[in-house]
């Protein structure tokens, strides 16, 4: 691993959270110590509000997704996307492939909130309990992070509200960027994984 030090950096949410909290607490200690607790509780209230909203969204989407599942459509969808999913994620498990197919389809339709429950389920199915993210999990996160949506409906809505003459003229650039970054993400993950395997293989010898 000494050859490629960047790959040995273990990024965890713990580090990010700690850095964010430590730096802002230090600054607030000097600038505005009295407001800190209030702000934190306010953020908690925001989170609660968001969760109630999300609950309303999930109740609709999980209901519809169950219909998709019960009618056998999800199986058909998975079958359609299977060759692609197997190649990209390097997995071979029909149930997991089905969940990933639903997650990606929801993303493409631009309903990120419907994709979330499927993403959580897929991560659970992919978890090998080793405490480290495996290749398929990383790939799923990267694909979700590069937002593969076909129609940026929310943005178009906001733009037309703001009085745009042609709110949809951002669709083409958005599509180009989305596809480029998703493909870049897939290639990067496969390249890094390839090198990691090589290094591991070299170590064993």
């Amino acid at each position, binding site marked *: 691993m000494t050859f490629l030090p960047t790959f040995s950096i273990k990024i965890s949410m713990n580090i990010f959270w700690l850095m964010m909290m430590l730096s802002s607490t230090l600054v607030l200690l000097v600038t505005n110590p009295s407001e800190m607790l209030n702000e934190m509780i306010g953020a908690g209230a925001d989170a609660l509000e968001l*969760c109630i909203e999300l609950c309303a969204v999930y109740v609709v989407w999980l209901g519809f997704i169950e219909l998709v599942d019960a009618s056998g459509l999800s199986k058909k969808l998975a079958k359609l996307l299977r060759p692609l999913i197997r190649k990209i994620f390097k997995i071979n498990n029909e149930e997991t492939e089905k969940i990933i197919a639903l997650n990606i389809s929801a993303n493409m339709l631009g309903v990120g909130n419907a994709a979330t429950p499927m993403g959580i389920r897929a991560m659970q199915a992919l978890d090998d309990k080793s405490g480290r993210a495996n290749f398929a999990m990383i790939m799923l996160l990267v694909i979700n992070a590069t937002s593969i949506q076909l129609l940026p409906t929310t*943005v178009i809505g906001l733009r037309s509200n703001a009085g745009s003459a042609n709110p949809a003229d951002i669709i083409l650039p958005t599509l180009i960027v989305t596809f480029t970054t998703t493909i870049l993400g897939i290639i990067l993950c496969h390249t890094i994984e390839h090198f990691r395997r090589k290094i591991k293989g070299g170590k064993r010898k």
Partner: protein
Amino acid sequence: MSAYILPVLFLLLIIYCIFKRINTYDSFVKGAKGAIKLVVDIFPFIASILIAVTLLRVSGITTFLTQILSPIFNFLGIPPELTELVLLRPFTGSGSYALLEDVLTTYGADSYISRCACVIMGCSETIFYVATVYFSQTKVKKLLYAIPVALLCSIVGTILACLLCRVM
């Protein structure tokens, strides 16, 4: 036009379910059951990240970072007016949409800056939020290279978005 997509898909789904003789009500209820449990499970994760992001904003660190990063972003072809949006996008969805609305009203919906902001929003995600929530129900503690790769793609996307908006 895009307003029709989801209703039409729902209609097709319901017709398909009738055709397949599925008890739609029973199935819908069965799926909907999972909603509250899911939200209860992810609430602490959402709250923790929102608390950290709020403190980061209140403490003025984001403003400070915006000032530092503006010249670098400008060098990469990203308008300095969008630094804060680009910076906050990986952390908060609602926060970055509020910033987008600001940009749209301040600079006009059809200005170069607004179009850049729209494309950036359309092709990026709240990476840290998605990472926290997606991994929340697993045993995973180490994400390895997931976040660096996601962030890198996001930056490349942002630069490409600003470039494309110049010519398209």
